[in-house]
């Protein structure tokens, strides 16, 4: 952990059930007390749809603790993916708009890019796939997202692993045959 006042790093060992090693996972902090990790892929490129909660506790004396999230409803869990985005957002359809999380896009188990939106409820640990109107962005992975004006999820960039990178933008020379 990095102390923003002093600039000093300290290595913190966490208790509990840690996630397996992975890359391309998302990790969001909720209200400075907990953090949620979702998905990603293992070293042998197996994509994940599991989720882990890191209890941060309060103060530097608390030992952080991992907890494997047991989903409320297995049928609504998003397909496994890596290089997606996860963003903490208000859930306006619920009274008082409690904080939830939205994941968008990424790359699925067959390395296909995704353009789906799923919402996670931190209270019930259930997922819900959203069916938005309008035209979604093209399927993509490796993009970035953030919450804007407390009411919008903004997505920028990303790529499509099915399109060779050198062909992705016009005006560049074709690769040698």
């Amino acid at each position: 952990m990095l102390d923003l006042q002093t600039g000093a790093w300290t290595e913190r060992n966490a208790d509990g059930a840690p996630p397996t090693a992975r890359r391309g996972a998302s990790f969001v902090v909720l209200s400075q007390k907990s953090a949620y990790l979702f998905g990603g892929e293992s070293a042998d490129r197996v994509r994940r749809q599991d989720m882990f909660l890191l209890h941060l506790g309060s103060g530097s004396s608390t030992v952080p603790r991992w907890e494997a999230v047991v989903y409320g409803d297995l049928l609504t869990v998003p397909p496994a993916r890596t290089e997606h985005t996860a963003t903490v957002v208000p859930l306006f359809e619920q009274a008082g708009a409690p904080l939830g999380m939205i994941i968008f896009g990424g790359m699925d188990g067959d390395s296909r890019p995704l353009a789906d939106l799923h919402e996670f409820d931190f209270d019930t640990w259930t997922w819900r796939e959203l069916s938005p109107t309008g035209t979604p962005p093209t399927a993509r992975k490796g993009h970035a997202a953030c919450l804007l004006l407390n009411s919008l999820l903004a997505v920028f960039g990303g790529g499509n692993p099915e399109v060779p990178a050198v062909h992705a933008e016009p005006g560049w020379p074709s690769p040698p045959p």
Partner: protein
Amino acid sequence: MYADVALYDLRRNSWTQTTAVGSELPAGRDGHSMVAIDDTVYIFGGVNAKGEKMGDLWAFNAYSAVSGQLQWSRPTPMSDTPAPRWGHAALASVGTLLLLGGSGTEDDALLNDAWQMTAGCSGNMTLTAARGAFTDGAGYALNNLDCRWHMKPAVAHSNVLLFFSNLDIADPNDRLSIYDGDTVNAPLLASYTGSTIPPSVRPSPHGAIALRPGLGLGLSVRGLTPDPDPNPNPNPSP
């Protein structure tokens, strides 16, 4: 690689695509970071379609994106900047952008450096360009902010002309002070608070000026411009 900005409206459950206006656009990329500080969205780095790691910083205003006229800008760095990278982590914390690690240009070497970016101003900045605009940033300044701009154009024998496009200081105890010299110990030329745009300032012709906004909340100064005299004296007195 994509370079578009899409917006999902959480209340209306709908997607909209934004249209970027203006000639400068960031290259398509992935593995970059995107962070919102107040109403400004920043993107940094990533890897472009040619596989090159990037270290560029871009910004757009949230309201411009919502209005459908998204205008990208490239904030001028006032310090060293992080080396090009992709796959790094970034987050916003109390008005600053924090950036950590990633994969760099040399054989994708993994990085473990941490950076902090303060939008607007922080500490001492020396401005050497012949012409430019600078600001302490939009929105509220952090508590105990003490940033100083030192104008010293690289052009020899230049004079400095400073003019203001905006001044918005909420607390009368906070002040913007302009000094006629290299340091805040130099003679005080002027000191302002409130929101009346001050007249332009032309300090004595030695090409150096120091500015210090006061401490505290609610300071916003925009568009202060060092501008060398168009007809500098070719034979300045020693």
